[in-house]
């Protein structure tokens, strides 16, 4: 059974169609990429999946349970974590406090050993030495890692990453790629939106393509890279 099933979801803002009849499945224990040109509706899909935006139509099921238009904090507590396109950490609080807040509000906050969970997450993203620093004082890339650690400390079964490597240096792209591979190996499912196609094809086993608010294609990276409709959407008709 797929961990996430999206069936015919749609969203309009007045007369503007942001997402129209999009359906796909996210398989358990692999990374699924959601790609498409700017304005294709990827972030709107993410927002609907995590309850940040209401879907006008369609249904979303997580582990067999309908979560369509459920409040975002309830979706999070079911086991779905997410990061944002513009990195979002609590800048006035220390890195450790950011993780403590995430841990305390997870589906099953640890009565004992919360510190272990926090330190494991910090260790995974190699940010232990920055634990006492205010999150707002870190570099953009470091804040991306803290944001990921905040999600990890909640021990979700599905992590949704909105442009995880946008704006970060090539060294950090490698590091993030390595961390995400380790997460997949540990059984966590990933759904990620990303413009870096090399990163997506290197990490994902399944790719969903959106264009102009609609589903264009889905398949393995090889199938997607050979699909003429996808090539046209990304490169134009003269490719």
């Amino acid at each position, binding site marked *: 059974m797929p961990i996430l099933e999206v069936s015919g979801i749609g969203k309009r803002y007045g007369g503007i169609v942001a997402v129209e009849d999009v359906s796909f499945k996210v398989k358990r224990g692999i990374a699924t990429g959601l790609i498409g040109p700017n304005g294709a509706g990827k972030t709107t899909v993410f927002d609907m999946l*995590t*309850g*940040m935006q209401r879907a006008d139509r369609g249904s979303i099921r997580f582990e067999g349970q309908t979560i369509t238009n459920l*409040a*975002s*904090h*309830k979706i*999070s*507590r079911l086991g779905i*974590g*997410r990061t*944002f396109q513009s990195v*979002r*950490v*609590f*800048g*006035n*609080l*220390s890195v*450790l*406090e950011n993780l*403590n*807040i*995430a841990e*305390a*509000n*997870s*589906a099953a906050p640890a009565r004992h050993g919360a510190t272990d969970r926090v330190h494991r997450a910090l260790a995974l993203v190699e940010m232990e030495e920055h634990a*006492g620093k205010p999150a707002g004082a870190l570099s953009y890339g470091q804040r991306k890692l803290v944001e990921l650690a*905040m999600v990890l400390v*909640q021990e979700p079964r599905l992590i949704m990453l909105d442009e995880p490597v946008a704006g970060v240096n090539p060294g950090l792209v490698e590091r993030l790629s390595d961390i995400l591979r380790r997460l997949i190996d540990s059984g966590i499912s990933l759904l990620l939106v990303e413009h870096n196609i090399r990163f997506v094809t290197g990490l994902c086993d399944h790719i969903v393509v959106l264009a102009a608010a609609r589903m264009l294609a889905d398949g393995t990276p090889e199938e997607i890279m050979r699909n003429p409709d996808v090539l046209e959407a990304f490169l134009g008709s003269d490719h």
Partner: protein
Amino acid sequence: MMNQPASSRSAAMIAVAVLAIIALAVPRLAPNEFILSILGFAMIYAMLAASWDLLIGFAGLVSFGHAGFFGLGGYAAALATYHFGLSPWLGLPIGGLAGGVFGILIGIPTLRLRAVYLALATLAFAESLRIIATNWHDLTRGSLGFNLHPTFFRLSGEAANSYYVVLLVSSLSIAVIYYIARHTSLGMTFQAVRDDELRARSLGIDVVRHKIAAFALSGFFAGVAGALYAHYLGLISPSELGPATTMLVVAMSTIGGIGTIIGPALAAIVLYLASELLRMIGSTYGQVAIGALLIFFVILFPEGVAGWLSRQRASWRNKRKT
């Protein structure tokens, strides 16, 4: 919670201990009823400022209706004594509960409001209470308010006793507010909601429940402060529900340093004592001086005294490292 260096923690503990010794020694050093009286009121305002800071400084909710919580707490305590003959000691939790419930009642309908809109809505709530208190003569005795004599805390006839009661209740309340704000996951979650609601929701935080909790907690402590005030002064009237009370608390917190709890509490004590001194010169000058001080701080030290000191300390520490 912030990881304060051990030296900083020790300095803070020494400062608290020195202040506690001074506060306890005042009735011996200056056994003057007037001095004890204004010190008591200063402590009540310190508690009120700390409760307001919990709401704005930690939960990010701008309330200009704090006088409503304060006055309601005072009226609830007075009604309990005046109409039902209950012990004024019971008036303290009753005042707190009244403030807390009013906090929930304000919190629910104003959840979607932000910044100036929330401030106006809370101001309107407090003003409604003031109008009710002024006009519902059968229940509130209108603009006369309640005379609560003999004042419970002075039953023994010793002004020092009532001073100690106020000192104990207000100090404990400020300590509890500080502990909640700085050392509990609830306080940290308030800060998360204040800093980024969207991120907070995505981490499983029920933003609505936490905002209501912040209003309830802040209202509770403001209500206890109101009850304490009513029994300490021996009077509660509609003027305590007026915007002047709120503005005084806003000024105290802004000058002390919003988001620090201790800053607003200390500033409240200093400003209240200063305003009493200035009142001796003439009430107009006193109000003008506080207004001028507020403008001075908003322009030159927007983070308040506590925020400025904290920044200086951080900068000094960085210099020492390099």
